């Protein structure tokens, strides 16, 4: 009889053609989707050309290419990388190429187009590929040579990770959402707390989370060093898949007696709106402790918090209020679909009335690329995922990580603040 397995182990065993797997086993898995963006694809194409016997990709329908990071192209060098990827998509007849204007940020675009689903194995040339664990998929980021290899053979070798279970108990306070949960978790276990491992997110609070929130949490699994982060599949997952037209997926569940490398119980009732201060995502504080920190810029969006639910949270705070005179507030819907939905729901008008700039979908400022790069001494409150030194620009600029509620409230206050610290909005 096969050994009892965690959710991650179940998916890996099925894709390795084995009855079971154990942590530490080195296996080769079949891949359901291989994703790359213009930065990772350009290097991967160069490597792919070196493989003798690989003129065509193994399956063009299982490859997705998404220009996102420095697009719309910020300079000639970027335009050259983007063109390499576009030409490769045409040459290899890869139809899942999402041109600028028809896509956005990969981790927002692929789920909303029904390209990822429960029980699947997905790798991507981007560390935040872990996002798709929100749907109960095994998803992990890799470098470009691994992408090139996967394009050729449709397989990847990996070491089966030990799984740590994180159990979210209690209930959420007002203005506390998924981003606060994952920041609190990283604050607890550290940026290498899950190194080489898998995180399985469970508990009563998680059951109530919308898929957008699960994406936010799985997205930042990598910030704890994890190979992947994954959520159990439930009715919410199935409803999401039905809504986006995702079909033909297999639902796996962790065995009740599966062995976990560790368990961490988090009492959500104790969690206030969170902020991670420079230079690591593990440096978490309560937003209310940081009121003396002035901000010069606020970024709301990205693969972590660029979905419509995130936009609604930001709009709830910004409605009838004005961005502080010293602050540039940059709102970046994660995809064209989210952008359009913002317009339909009147959120774009709220943002513009408040004094925000509303950008086309791009990773832009998060990677210090464009659309909001910081200079020396500037500080940004941001719904992005990394606050490393120099991440958003100058080596002496600072990024403070938080969720949309606090980012929006801080944009209004001019310093770090939670929504409950703001005065009443002006009646419309």
């Amino acid at each position, binding site marked *: 009889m096969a050994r009892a397995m965690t959710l991650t182990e179940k998916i890996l065993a099925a894709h390795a053609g084995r009855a079971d797997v154990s942590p530490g086993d080195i296996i080769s898995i079949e891949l359901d989707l291989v994703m790359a963006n213009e930065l990772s694809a350009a290097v991967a194409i160069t490597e792919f050309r070196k493989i003798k016997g690989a003129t065509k990709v193994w399956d063009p329908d299982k490859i997705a290419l998404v220009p996102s990071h420095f697009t719309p192209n910020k300079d000639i060098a970027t335009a050259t990388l983007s063109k390499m990827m576009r030409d490769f998509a045409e040459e290899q007849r890869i139809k899942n190429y999402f041109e600028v204007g028809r896509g956005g940020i990969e981790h927002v675009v692929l789920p909303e187009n029904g390209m990822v689903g429960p029980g699947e194995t997905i790798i991507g040339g981007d*560390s935040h590929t872990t996002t798709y664990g929100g749907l109960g998929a095994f998803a992990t980021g890799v470098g470009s040579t691994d992408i090139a290899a996967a394009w050729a053979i449709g397989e990847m070798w990996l070491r089966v990770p030990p799984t740590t279970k994180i159990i979210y108990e209690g209930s959420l306070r007002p203005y506390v959402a998924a981003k606060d949960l994952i920041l609190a978790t990283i604050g607890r276990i550290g940026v290498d707390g899950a*190194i080489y491992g898998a995180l399985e997110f469970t508990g009563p609070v998680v059951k109530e989370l919308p898929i957008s929130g699960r994406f936010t949490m799985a997205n930042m699994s990598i910030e704890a060093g994890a190979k992947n982060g994954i959520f159990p599949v439930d009715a919410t997952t199935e409803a999401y898949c039905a809504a986006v037209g995702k079909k033909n997926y297999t639902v796996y569940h962790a065995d009740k007696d599966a062995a976990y490398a560790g368990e961490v119980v988090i009492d959500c009732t104790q969690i206030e709106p969170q902020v991670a201060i420079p230079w690591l995502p593990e440096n978490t504080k309560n937003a209310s402790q940081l009121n003396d920190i002035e901000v010069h810029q606020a970024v709301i969006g990205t693969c972590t918090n660029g979905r419509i639910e995130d936009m609604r949270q930001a709009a709830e705070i910004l409605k009838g209020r004005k961005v502080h005179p010293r602050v540039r507030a940059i709102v970046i819907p994660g995809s064209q679909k989210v952008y359009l939905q913002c317009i339909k729901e009147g959120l774009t008008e709220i943002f513009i009335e408040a004094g925000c700039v509303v950008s086309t979908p791009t990773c832009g400022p998060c990677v210090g690329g464009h659309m909001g790069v910081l200079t020396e001494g500037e500080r940004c409150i941001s719904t992005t995922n990394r606050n490393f030194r*120099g991440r958003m620009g100058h080596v002496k600029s600072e990024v403070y990580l938080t969720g949309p509620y606090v980012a929006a409230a801080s944009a209004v206050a001019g310093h770090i603040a939670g929504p409950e610290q703001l005065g009443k909005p002006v009646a419309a």
Partner: protein
Amino acid sequence: MILKGTAHKYGKNVDTDVIIPGRYCNLIDPVELGKHALEDLDAGFVKKAKPGDLIVADTNFGCGSSREVAAVALKGAGVAGVVAKSFARIFYRNCINTGLPIFECPDGVDGINDGDTITVDAANGLIRNETTGKEFRATQFPKFMQDLIAGGGLLAYVEKRLQEKAAQRA
């Protein structure tokens, strides 16, 4: 292969953004990337590092982005290898795939100071601090990875898998 050079020592969680900042991620050329290696952690690194030098660092080296250019930038700057207490997993794979030798050796990191001369026997993971005379042994790679590296790396492995698949179809 014996690596010999000066150790440049850094702390915990050296992330890929300081190894090669995002603003240079639209570069591909190893030499150009190498000019900016570790720029945001130690602006003087590229100037003081000599070809063949090694980086010694604490835990979780290379955390963050999947950018393969992080490993390429270190190679481009002439770095011969990295000794750390632990590596972030994507960076670990990227080093194997781009041929930047890495060694997991917690004792060695504690026993090497910035500026010491060290030698590393890449074949058996023996690390010797020439300045102090102390020796350390790096964690061995699992057999699969040893074979992968000895066989010429990931692309050579892929070529073999393509041949096997073609034979299966025949």
